[in-house]
C-alpha cells in the first residue's frame, strides 16, 4: 500500500474562521495607528526644533478634523491593545507566593493600576 498524504493549503480565510482570530488581527492592526501616531509625534518634535512658526503650524494641523478623527481612532486602538494585553499578563507573569499562585485579577489589576497612575501623572503634567 502506497502512502500519498494530502496537504491542505492554508488560505487567509483562517482570520474569519473564529472570532478569536478576528480579535487577534484587530490587536495586531492597532500597531499601525500607534506607529503612525508615534511618527506624528517625532515630526512634531522636529517642527518644535524649527522655531515658533513651524510649531504653531503643527498645532494648527492637529486641530484639523482629519487629525481629530485619526487621534480618536488611535485612542480606541491603543485602549483596545492595552486592555487585551493587560488581560493576558497573568499568563506571562505568574507569581507564586508560597504554594499558591497569586490570582490572575491581582496581576492584571496591578497593571491597570500602574496604567492609571502613569496616565494621571502625564495628565497632571500636561494640564
Amino acid at each position: 500500500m502506497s502512502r500519498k498524504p494530502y496537504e491542505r493549503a492554508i488560505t487567509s480565510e483562517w482570520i474569519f474562521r473564529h472570532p478569536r482570530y478576528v480579535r487577534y488581527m484587530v490587536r495586531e492592526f492597532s500597531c499601525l495607528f500607534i506607529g503612525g501616531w508615534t511618527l506624528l509625534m517625532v515630526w512634531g518634535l522636529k517642527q518644535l526644533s524649527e522655531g515658533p512658526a513651524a510649531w504653531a503650524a503643527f498645532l494648527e494641523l492637529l486641530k484639523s478634523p482629519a487629525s481629530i478623527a485619526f487621534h480618536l481612532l488611535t485612542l480606541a486602538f491603543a485602549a483596545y491593545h492595552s486592555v487585551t494585553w493587560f488581560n493576558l499578563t497573568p499568563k506571562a507573569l505568574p507569581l507564586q507566593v508560597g504554594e499558591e499562585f497569586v490570582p490572575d485579577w491581582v496581576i492584571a489589576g496591578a497593571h491597570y493600576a500602574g496604567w492609571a497612575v502613569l496616565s494621571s501623572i502625564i495628565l497632571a503634567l500636561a494640564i
Partner: protein
Amino acid sequence: MRQVELEVLRYNPETDREPHFQRYSVDCQEEWVVLDALNHVKETLDPTLSYRWSCHMAVCGSCGMMVNGEPKLACKAFLRDYQGVIRVEPLRHFPVERDLVTVIDDFIAKLASVKPYLIPRDKAPQASEYRQTPAQLKRYKQFTLCINCMLCYAACPEYGLIPKYLGPAAIALAHRWNRDSRDGGRDARQEEIAATEGAWECSFVGACSEVCPEHVDPAGAIQQVKIESTVDWYQEHLMPWLKK
C-alpha cells in the same frame, strides 16, 4: 434518540486525488459524543471510515479532529451541543493520511527535539528519592496535563503559516521540565525553545490555550519562555559574570 447528519471529510490515498465530504444520517442517543457517532457509522454504515481513537475519556489524546471548524476531542464533543449538520474534518495544519487520520510525524519530531523528560542535574543518579515540596510540584503541574492531542497545533495560525514553528505543546512540555526542581536540562532545551522558530515565532494569538481540552495553557508557557529567554540574554550580554 435523534437523527444527526454527519458530514465527514473522506480521503482515500489510493483512489482519490483530493478529499471530499460524505454525508451520513446517524440515529444517535442523546448522550452521545461525536466519537460515538463515528463508531456507529463504522460499525453499521461504512466500515471503510478511518479515524484514530482509543480511550473515549479525554486521556489518550488520539481522537483530535475538527468539529464544525473547531479543534475538538471527538470523545468530548457532545452531539447535543451542536445544531444541524455536524462537519467533521481531520485536524487542520497536518497532512491527511486517510479520512480523519493525519500525519503527525512533524509533531512527534518536534516533541522529541525539546527533550521532554527528566535530565538529572548530576550524571550519577541520586542514591535516595528526589524530594519535592508541594510548592515545587505546583510550579509545573499544570503543564504535565498535556495529552499530546495536537488540538493546539490545529488552532495555531502561526503553525499553519510557518510549519517550522516548534508549536505550543512542544514548548509547554519543555517548559514543564524546565520548571521542575529535579531537572537540570534547561540549557539543552533552550537551543530549541528560545530559538526564532521556538517561542519567538509565537505572536500570542492565544488560540492554543482556548482549545486545549486539559487547560494546560500553552500560550502562557510560551510567554514565560520568552521572558526567561530575554532575562538570559540580558544576563549574558550585560552581566556576563553572573553566567556560571
